[in-house]
């Protein structure tokens, strides 16, 4: 069971590494922005598996941080959007 959890965590980390390719090649800003969504979701899944693997419920609270980071992306987008609208009214 421990070996299986380790394999799942390594697999999810490889997913994040593959997502970095899109950050490197992404033609537009929005392409790079959408990978933060991938990192938030995958990072939260890694922390959930770690919480079960190490039997420490504290990792669940760390996973909430990734939730909040995904919400911060929305706030940042709205700020950038309003700035762009202000420049070209």
């Amino acid at each position, binding site marked *: *069971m421990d070996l*299986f959890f380790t394999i*799942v965590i390594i*697999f*999810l980390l490889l*997913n994040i590494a*593959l*997502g970095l*390719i*899109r950050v490197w090649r992404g033609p*537009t800003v*929005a*392409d790079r*922005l*959408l*990978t933060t*969504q*991938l990192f*938030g*979701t*995958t990072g*939260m*899944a890694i922390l*959930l*598996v770690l*919480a*079960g693997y190490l039997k420490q*419920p504290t990792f*669940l609270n760390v*996973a*909430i941080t990734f*939730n909040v980071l*995904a*919400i911060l*992306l*929305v706030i940042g*987008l*709205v700020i*950038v*959007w309003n700035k*762009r609208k202000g420049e*070209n009214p």
Partner: protein
Amino acid sequence: MSIKELITIILLVIGCFFFLAGTLGVLRFPDLFTRLHALTKADNLGLGFIAAGMALHIASPWAAVKIFSMWLLMLLASSTSCYLIARFEKEKDAPKNKKEEL
């Protein structure tokens, strides 16, 4: 191996499959909108399967409630940011006159 562990393993494997599908979609799809479609649906479904498996493995009711509410929050955040990113890109391409008509 008990039946609980077997169900956990099956749920985690299904979740990993959906994560792989989402990442491959982000890498291989040609357009920004199709990439958003692949990412926000497949990844959150995979997260739901992994959350269900880990809630079963931890086997504490309060942890299960916490994991479930975290998944709901992630669904809300990802759908909102998906909509915002798509609209961000669409308004950049649209001509200004057309935007005022709408």
